[in-house]
């Protein structure tokens, strides 16, 4: 019974997340946000490019006759040509296929780290704030402690024991949830006192249900934005670690290792690192644009040009 009560209490008109509203005449919040997002050309372009990169990274290698470990003994260090679209390396490896392989790694790691770290941040932040007391203090102490050391240093220290590149995903995720957890905690502190949460609590709904049905949906916007921000940051972190040799290990490749390999001869044979660098910047830039567009879509007031322009015109003494 309690489930029914709480579901209805969540659907109070005007409450930020209103599951019933989609069925009625007024457009739901989700649809409004979507409409605002689609109006933002840069953000839509970012999303298209990001999805396009994913498709390219997985379909591209299929179109090429080479694999990322093949060595073409007839072409060493050749500039881009019809045979090798991005040229070849010192030992005749095809740069295009290697770049796509690296792009796969970097994108998959980035995407998974983004999703996992936001999930962890949501659980830790809501649990800390909802239960309060020593749970809160202990969790926040852990957050404070982990914020002291840059992720890069700790992961680099652990890197000699890596045997598989997949280990990068949980390790990076372990350092990406910290700040978001603090923000989620802060929001939960205020949401916890809302009437509908109180009502659910007093009608006997268990805490985990309250958290996932009444608290988390009310910060969906910030969580979605957090995922996109984290994807971009995670891609940068992974390529950075791989660049230093502490991430993805040869013979496998990531955009970071490709750039590292290419730098020694970057000036004479720029195709060795140029394409990897270009794809890296485009990937991160597109995610960042999506994140920015989402923020504006969720919160139109954050950048309201008209209100500010009015102030500027009226405010200038004439």
């Amino acid at each position, binding site marked *: 019974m309690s489930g029914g009560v709480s579901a209805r209490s969540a659907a109070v008109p*005007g409450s*930020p997340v209103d599951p019933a509203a989609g069925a009625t005449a007024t457009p739901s919040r989700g649809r409004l946000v979507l409409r605002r997002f689609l109006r933002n050309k840069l953000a839509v372009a970012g999303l298209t490019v990001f999805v396009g990169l994913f498709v390219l990274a997985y379909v591209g290698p299929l179109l090429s006759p080479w694999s990322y470990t093949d060595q073409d003994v007839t072409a060493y260090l050749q500039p881009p040509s019809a045979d090798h679209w991005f040229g070849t390396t010192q030992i005749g490896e095809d740069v295009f296929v290697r770049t796509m392989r690296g792009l796969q790694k970097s994108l998959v790691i980035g995407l998974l780290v983004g999703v996992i770290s936001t999930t962890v941040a949501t659980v830790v932040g809501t649990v800390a704030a909802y239960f309060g007391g020593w749970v809160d203090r202990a969790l926040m102490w852990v957050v*404070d*402690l982990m*914020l*002291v*050391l*840059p992720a*890069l*240093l*700790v992961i*680099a*220290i*652990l*890197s*000699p*024991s890596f045997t598989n590149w997949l280990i990068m995903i949980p390790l990076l995720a372990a350092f990406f949830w910290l700040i*978001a957890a603090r*923000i989620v905690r*802060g*929001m939960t502190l*205020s*949401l916890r006192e809302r009437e509908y949460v109180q009502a659910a609590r007093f009608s006997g709904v268990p805490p985990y249900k309250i958290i996932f049905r009444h608290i988390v949906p*009310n910060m969906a*916007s*910030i969580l979605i*934005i957090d995922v996109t*921000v984290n994807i*971009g940051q995670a891609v940068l972190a992974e390529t*950075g670690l791989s*660049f*230093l*040799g*502490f991430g993805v290990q040869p013979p496998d490749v990531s955009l970071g290792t490709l*750039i590292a390999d290419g*730098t020694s001869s*970057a*000036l004479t044979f720029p195709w060795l*690192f140029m394409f990897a*660098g270009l794809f*890296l*910047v485009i990937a*991160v*830039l597109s995610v*960042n*644009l999506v*994140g*920015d567009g989402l*923020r504006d879509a969720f*919160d139109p007031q*954050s*950048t309201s*040009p008209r*209100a*500010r*322009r009015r*102030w*500027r015109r009226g*405010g200038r*003494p004439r």
Partner: protein
Amino acid sequence: MQGVRRDEYHDGHAAFEECADRLPPPKGRDVTGFLLRRLINYVALCLIATFFAYSAAALTFNPLARYQMRNPPPPPEVIENLRQELRLDEPIPLRFLHWGAGVLQGDFGETITGQPITMELWSRVGVSLRLLLIGTTLGIVLGVALGALGAIRQYRPSDYAGTLFSFVVLSTPVFLLGILLQFAAIKFNDAAGTTVLYFTGETTAGFQGGFGAALLDRLQHLILPTIAIAFTQIALYSRYQRSAMLDVLGSDFLRTAQAKGLTRTRALFKHGLRTALIPMATLFAFGFGLLITGSVFVEEVFAWYGMGEWFVRGVQVEDVNIVATVTLFVAVLILFSGWLSDVLYAALDPRIRL
């Protein structure tokens, strides 16, 4: 979302307010006590963090592997000796205590090749601090200026240019930026017909010359790494400053300031910029951590023998003492910057002081 904090996560407001939450409520004129309490808290965090890094390094590193894999293999007694010397058989907390006791007396131990760390430490600290201090100063000053300008001139070409700059720079990893700068430097030097900008090392090896010439030489080496490290900082701070400033621009008190007769410029500087700087104070600490990570790459790309480069070498040769020393250095810097931002916060926001 009534009552709930706005979703300006990336633009930092939620993050700012969240950090501000950690500050205690104003308590009389007890700012010294407040700063002292924070300092003690930071020292404790510093110790624990270094211990964790030391333990992680001691657990994963196998410094003997390099010797065992040699061909022909060294006699077992040599390995055994080394094991004794590096105290590899003792439990890790004991090893940490031994190392920590040395640190308190100014002795950071030896590298696995037997060089005393303390000797090399100070020159490397100097190299790194030069880069970090200049980079962070430039980053903060230019970033705040660019952001404030962007807000004041919102939706004009200069604002778009600034936003485009920050977006591209924030999407470019520091190591790639460094390589591209080297590219640009070669083109620039070719155009100038002489070597104006150097991109390896912090001085020319075996440089001979007077004080002025030496200073010029260092400056020529300094320019590119500083640009590489400052760019990211400028981009980061300008984004946050722009959005903080936009919030202030729409506020009533700024209109009031103009209504009582201040010119727009005066109102913007006296009331606008100062208010918009308050939340930035907490961000500086966060940005400093990013800066340290960036400096590892910059030192690696430009072959500066600083702490970051040392750390990379330390992990490559699996040397626990080097890694622990650099970690301690980083933790001290980050926590000092955190404490400094508390001080700044107290200085800028009268609500904390009174």
